[in-house]
């Protein structure tokens, strides 16, 4: 699932021997964080790693993390591509709600809710509308030059209203075996949602890393003007990533609504955009664009899901997850910030006669803050 990492447009890390080289690897810190969290859970509950087979299905905490994390993995997948172009997509949470609402409304009003054609057309409707949402976002960003955060804010605000309009403000329940399969079903002993997310991640990795597409996206994110000048059709690429992001969010919306067999326009996918951004940032993709790591994003999404599971295991009120997430965001962003690193290294060698230029800058700025 992990794509080759050193194909990014940015500079490669210098090859270093041994352990140094391992810690320099882009996925090292996210993977270490995930491993620490998982091991911490083993200390709390001894059978945490136990996976048992029951009725031909795999059960266990690890499988739960994968299954409940699948929608977040998908939303984060689309978000990674958007962020790689130096954008952001705030409308994914609303898209999750709209997709779930559309599909459930379609199935609930159909004559035979359980039949495959009904479910397929429900899925097609949801994905089609999501693609239209992505087109609108892409149009605003690529054609009108609106800042991405602002362009997608429109649908973030209006989208949830639209979702409630579709469900008429109610929670629509559906009983459809075929639809239940997407988020709650099993296939080849594994949850279907996990397989679906895995396939989509693999396809995206292949398409972006085995073709030039990934490099083109990174080039647009790195320097949009230069990429246009060298003949990259930046506008088309931008529209494409927003469409992909919306469609991924829609699949996540189908999963979530299918898992609980109902659509809630108000709460489905609430704040998932923030979790997704968090997952992308944890995964090592910088918000300034130009370089992305799908493997990192998947790890990031799993870290967030494991964090939530841990909070539940600890018996702390689940709402306090937000505090932990906030701390994770702050730590990760500080770790990624060159200014912070410069300051740290500045501290470490206080007697150094000639601090690095970056460290000197940070010192100057500090004086400016507290004159």
């Amino acid at each position: 699932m992990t794509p080759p990492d050193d194909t990014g447009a940015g500079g490669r890390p210098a090859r270093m021997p041994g352990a140094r080289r391992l810690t320099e690897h882009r996925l090292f810190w996210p993977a270490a964080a995930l491993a620490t969290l998982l091991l911490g859970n083993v200390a709390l509950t001894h059978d945490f790693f136990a996976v048992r087979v029951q009725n031909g299905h795999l059960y266990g905490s690890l499988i739960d993390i994968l299954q409940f994390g699948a929608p977040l993995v998908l939303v984060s997948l689309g978000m990674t591509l958007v962020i790689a172009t130096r954008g952001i997509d705030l409308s994914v949470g609303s898209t999750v709600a709209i997709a779930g609402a559309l599909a459930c409304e379609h199935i609930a009003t159909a004559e035979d809710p359980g039949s495959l054609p009904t479910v397929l057309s429900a899925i097609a409707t949801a994905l089609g509308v999501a693609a239209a949402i992505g087109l609108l976002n892409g149009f605003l960003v690529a054609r009108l030059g609106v800042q991405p955060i602002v362009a997608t804010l429109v649908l973030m605000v209006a989208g949830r209203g639209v979702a409630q309009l579709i469900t008429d403000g109610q929670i629509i329940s559906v009983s459809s075996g075929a639809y239940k399969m997407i988020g709650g079903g099993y296939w080849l002993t594994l949850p279907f949602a996990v397989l679906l997310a895995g396939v989509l991640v693999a396809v995206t990795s292949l398409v972006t890393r085995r073709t030039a597409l990934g490099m083109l996206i990174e080039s647009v994110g790195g320097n949009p003007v230069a990429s246009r000048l060298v003949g990259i059709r930046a506008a088309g690429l931008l529209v494409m990533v927003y469409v992909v992001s919306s469609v991924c969010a829609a699949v996540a919306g189908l999963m979530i609504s299918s898992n609980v067999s109902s659509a809630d326009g108000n709460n489905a996918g609430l704040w998932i955009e923030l979790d997704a951004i968090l997952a992308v940032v944890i995964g090592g993709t910088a918000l300034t664009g130009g370089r992305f790591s799908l493997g990192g994003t998947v790890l990031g999404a799993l870290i967030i899901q494991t964090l939530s599971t841990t909070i539940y295991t600890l018996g702390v009120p689940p709402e306090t997850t937000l505090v932990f997430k906030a701390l994770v965001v702050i730590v990760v962003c500080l770790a990624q910030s060159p200014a912070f690193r410069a300051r740290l290294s500045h501290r470490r060698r206080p007697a150094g006669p000639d601090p690095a230029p970056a460290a000197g800058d940070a010192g100057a700025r500090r004086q400016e803050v507290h004159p």
Partner: protein
Amino acid sequence: MSTPLSSLTGPLQRFSVRHATRLPLMVTATLLIAMFSIGSLQYEGFFSAQVLLNVLIDNGFLLVVAIGMTFVILTGGIDLSVGSMVALSTMLTAWLVEQNGVPLALAVPLVLLVGAGGGALMGWVIHAFEIQPFIVTLAGMFLARGLCYMISTESISITDPTTTTIAQTRVLLPGGLFVSPAVVIALVVLALAFGVLHHTRFGRTVYALGGNESSARLMGLPVGRTKVAVYAVSGLCSALGGLLLTFYMLSGYALHAVGMELDAIAAAVIGGTLLTGGSGFVLGTALGVTVLGLIQTVISFQGTLSSWWTRIVIGGLLFVFILLQRLFGGPRADH
């Protein structure tokens, strides 16, 4: 990708030289008059000054929060933490006053201090470590909302006599009209913000910073101090907005003001503040809040329209105003 738009806006661009920054404001004012006129023709009892004052009474806290947001947006930043900060200050006030017997006179400055301090801290992280405002205030949003839940997951209702007395006070105006003390406070904050933004050195630095940060730095303006101050102002306004909401709701609840950051941003944008920073009016923000409030009033008068229409209409308005901003002036984003 700029060609189709710039060829289209050729004549508009010339027009925009003089009117660019004021056009959205004029559109908003026209919209406000149109909404009020249509409402008055459509619904009985709509045409009264009290209906307009009620809009202020119901949205006084939003006005205060949106004023703080305007400061941040003018510098080219954004503050996503304001909704959570409002919730946190309702929660803190209720917890201090109701469950710990702290007198209101002590709780209020404490809450304001927490808001301003939190804002300043975020501003400092944004400036010192060069992290995007969006992600830092996102962390602040999580943190403040999480702290609310740590205080209590239940709503805390307030029965403290001083608080309830203030909440029920009516400020009488001539002609049998009335407003709440919150409206008076909000208008005072508005006047203060107007004075600070347009008549002080700090205000000019705020605009300069949003116009071009590196130029501002080269001119020797205190970029760092101003950034920290602007987020502190936003935090302070959120805390004050939270206090006003506490009086309005007479309760502290972790789910108060969910999504208020979006309303505050929308109010600023509809009021003509450019999201890229450097251009806007705090009085426009007040118009923006009034437009949002009037939408809710129209929907409640209509009766058959449900509350989610509010979000859809606000989203639609946001869309229109963003298009207006793109067509008339304003620096383009990178892509």
